């Protein structure tokens, strides 16, 4: 049946639009930063995805559009890097809008 729940393996991941200063990865909290990834899917409209990025992250339109195109062309895009709870919050919001989003430890 539908394989829509499985994130597609993608080509090169898109570079994040706003990357945190790398030095902050030396924090000594037991739980480091988490990446929030949005995965491409064949149903969500491009316009809708741009709208969702604006609503959830407050991105200006060109940034939201760039990220949407990254998802569209590369199969996935990094949309945020955050502490665990914030990342969970974003994933929940994105699922609420019907996007496929996962979080993973920042490598």
């Amino acid at each position, binding site marked *: *049946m*539908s*394989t*829509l*729940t*499985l*994130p597609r393996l993608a080509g090169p991941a898109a*570079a*994040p*639009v*706003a*990357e945190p200063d790398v030095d902050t990865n030396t924090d000594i909290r037991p739980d480091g930063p988490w990446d929030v*990834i949005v995965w491409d899917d*064949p*149903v*969500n*409209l491009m*316009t*809708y995805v*741009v*709208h969702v990025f*604006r609503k959830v992250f407050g991105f200006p*339109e*060109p*940034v*939201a*559009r*760039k990220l949407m*195109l990254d998802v569209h062309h590369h199969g996935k895009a990094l949309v945020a890097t955050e502490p665990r709870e914030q990342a*969970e919050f974003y*994933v*929940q919001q994105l*699922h*609420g*809008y*019907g996007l*496929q*989003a*996962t*979080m*993973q*430890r920042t490598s």
Partner: protein
Amino acid sequence: MKPAFERHDDGIRMQLRSEEVDLLQRMRDELQAVLAAEDPDDPVRQRLFPSAVSQDDDADQELRRLIHDDLLRSRLDALDALAGYLDRAHRQRGRYVTDLVEEEPAIVLGTLNDIRLALASRVGLDVLEHREFVTDQTTQTTLAVMDWFGMWQEQLLVAMDPESARHYDEGHDLDELDDLEG
């Protein structure tokens, strides 16, 4: 042709023909039934409650468990709200008209999206990617409904958030967008 959704006064006017109201109500009812059934093997549920954590099955299970109830509730509430908006429609020049205000357009947008996701899960990914080879009437009808509701979403977004509905080849050079990266 009059759009199904357009700006009107301070809100957004939903104006549907009677067969469109029937279709939307039917799709609404079907999705509500699927969600109420809570069948974990249903591909519709799998799509509407997808993976949350990559590379860690335990964490994924835990976060999905945390997310599930609120997400289900908000989807069911939105479908109830949609029923209310359709109920309060008044007839005007051959259409059923409801003026949507405040958060109501966003709720309708979400229900349309959930319905499209559910329909897509019913036909399966292969069909979506190879729809030119589809011959059976039921599947063709499902795809047509998805396209129709997609058009409504586009109209609604133009009315709600015109910025999101701009085409990428208007105004912005893609190189200019690259400059926005850090």
